[in-house]
């Protein structure tokens, strides 16, 4: 979701998978077509996690903060409306949860504040299982995300470094999340990319993402990224699916943020959007 200059034109395949049976079928098929040395189901060795058990400031050995409204002052390339801070009001660990809170308030020229945490230079890994258990906020213009960027982004600017969006969500669509990849030539920017990002929507039936906790994760290995919500694997992206170079064979770092407004959510909040809004994170776990 970073540095997206224009509206994200994503190829959305809206599919609701109700059972894991289909997921197993996908895995089975994939296994037939791929190198035998690769195996998607062996990421069971927990190598790093933040269970958010220590109250107060998020663990500085795990998390850093992005501050402000983007290096170019354009809402992080997305016309986001919030100003990110490292204040405890916007991000704190409480009762076993990381709580990121978006407020409607005038601050440093912006009308909203919130927080964006990232593990750049602290926790970076190539391949593995990355998952977070979260309860999402809601309302028009609310845009939480759990995502990853290629760790070489300082020398290999977006979208070249690659982006894996494990979970993105529009507050006005409380039953849906998206999983995507962006890379060179295929991304959310019409200026920078010929092709759109590769994205899939997952929709809950008879439930929604802002009323309870759900696990959002990927299984990422050489030549595949599998997306899942809770126990449902809903998409697999492979080099064959991306209209460009596969740039997902190097370390990535994690970001968790709660944006207010932006092209992805069709503009800003409206009169009915309730503030403050909170993103609760129970844990972030990384396996290999």
């Amino acid at each position, binding site marked *: 979701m970073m540095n997206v200059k224009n509206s994200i034109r994503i190829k959305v395949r809206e599919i609701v998978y109700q059972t894991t049976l289909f997921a197993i079928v996908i895995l089975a098929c994939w296994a037939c077509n791929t190198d035998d040395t690769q195996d998607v189901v062996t990421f069971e060795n927990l190598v790093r996690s933040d269970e958010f058990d220590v109250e107060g400031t998020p663990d500085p050995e795990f998390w850093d903060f992005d501050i402000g409204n983007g290096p170019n002052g354009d809402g992080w390339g997305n016309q986001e409306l919030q100003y990110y801070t490292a204040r405890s009001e916007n991000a704190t660990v409480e009762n076993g949860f990381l709580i990121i809170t978006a407020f409607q308030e005038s601050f440093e020229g912006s009308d909203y504040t919130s927080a964006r945490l990232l593990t750049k230079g602290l926790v970076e890994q190539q391949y593995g299982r990355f998952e977070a258990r979260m309860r999402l906020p*809601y*309302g*028009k213009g609310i845009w939480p995300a759990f995502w990853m960027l290629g760790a070489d982004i300082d020398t290999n600017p977006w979208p070249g470094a690659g982006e894996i969006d494990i979970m993105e969500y*529009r*507050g*006005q*669509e*409380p*039953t849906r999340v998206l999983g995507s990849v962006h890379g060179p030539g295929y991304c959310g920017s019409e200026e920078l990319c010929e092709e759109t990002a590769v994205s899939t929507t997952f929709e809950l*039936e*008879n*439930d*929604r993402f*802002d*009323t309870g906790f759900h696990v959002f994760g990927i299984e990422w290995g050489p030549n595949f990224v599998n997306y899942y919500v809770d126990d449902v694997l809903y998409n697999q992206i492979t080099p064959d699916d991306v209209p460009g170079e596969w740039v997902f064979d190097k370390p990535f770092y994690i970001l968790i943020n709660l944006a207010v407004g932006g092209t992805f959510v069709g503009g800003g909040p409206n009169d*009915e959007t*309730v503030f403050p809004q909170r993103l609760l994170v129970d844990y972030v776990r990384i396996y290999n």
Partner: protein
Amino acid sequence: MKRTRINIIKKSVFVACLIAASTSCERSISDDVEFATLSNGGEIFTDDFIGMGEDFYFPFIGAKPDVFSVDMDEGYESTTSIRIDVPNADDPAGGFAGANFVIDGSGRNLTEFDALTFWARASQAATAGLFGFGEEFSTEVAQVDLTTQWQQYIVPIPDPSKLVEVKNVFRFAAGGIGTEGQEVGYSFWIDELKFEKLGTIAQPRPAILAGQDVTVDAFIGQEFPLIPLTQTFNLGNGQNQTTLIDASYFTFSSSNPEVAKVNEGGIVTVFRQGTAEITAVLNGVSAQGSLNLNVLGSFVSAPIPPARDPSDVISVFSDSYESLSGLNVAVFNGPGFPAGEPISISMTDFDGNNIIEYGNLDFVGIGWDGNVDVSGLQFLHIDVQVTQGLSPSDILNVQIIDFGANGVDDGSVRVDDTGGGFNIPAADLEEGVWVPIDIPVNQFTLPTGGGFAGSPNLTNVARVVFVGNLGVANILVDNIYFYRN
């Protein structure tokens, strides 16, 4: 007798009143409830009525009775549906359609559902007055837009745990389309009418008094309903849906029960001098909005005006003279003064003596039917009791507006409208005491904040305006009339 209506200047209040009026005719629940045997089925009409019994259709009083049928040629993904033929406004059998569907037999246990849902379409785009359900736990969605395409509608249940037995499972009301009084009828169809567990009804935000924190000065014996009472949910499609709901869903509380209490019907009664904050909770969620009462003590009436020859008086608001029809105590008003403090406007009947109360008044215009010629009269009389502390520099500004020969409000264009103001200084007022004020009709010489030059014409007077933003923002008013000696 001492019921006070708080005017919250919002459309929904009016709707709420209409609904209260239109649905208050039915109210009964069986005494011999046997919970164990109640059906917990949700379906009301799919391809036919389900479990409704023989005699379930009860039109509202005043509604055209025979508007309902089952259409065998129309339906949502089927060929049967409920058809309602909304009559023309001038239909002698009744000018609108409206009815309750009440189970002929035992009620249903709806505690496992979270919404009433149905599909509907109309013969032409129209806005139905309401859809809902419930007797004791009435729940209604007002002003529902229907289109010519089938669409699903969702009426979220405010708190399903309350619905252990419901017999009144569906209710609708609709008038025709067009100019008021000349509405033309149309038809609409309803299908797949049922209670469901959607699982996507979330983020409850109950509210009393339209979610506003209202502060009012009050007197012993006064009563305040907390309407409109609402519950708002966010639906699975991301849209918010507000329902107008019965007080029985709420638990009300008073911060000072010796000063004021709330009954289960959501009516606040004032008992003694002091202050009290009235709040409410619905199913564990604090309701937005509160009523903050500042009880001044026992009510003392304004002095009764002297008897006068009717030809010597044109009364806008008084129980002592025959007054003009169509009184509107707030044709227009500002948001409140000081800024951020919402205006409160209410009228209270103290045993036959009505008074108007303005709180946090920035400005308000009082209107009535037609315009009046006061050029032959001498004074505008008002009785004013200030209910706030006064500083020497405070002023209550009173204005009159004349609509001119064309007789209508020309708005900011003015045309032939004229207006002017008169300042009543603090020295001429007194906190807690009725003060009679007589302003010569030719003394409204000051220019007004609304842009009038002063010294208005007097032959088509249509408004009396009170402006509180010069310091006197909390007043009781009685006996507004023009007269001559």
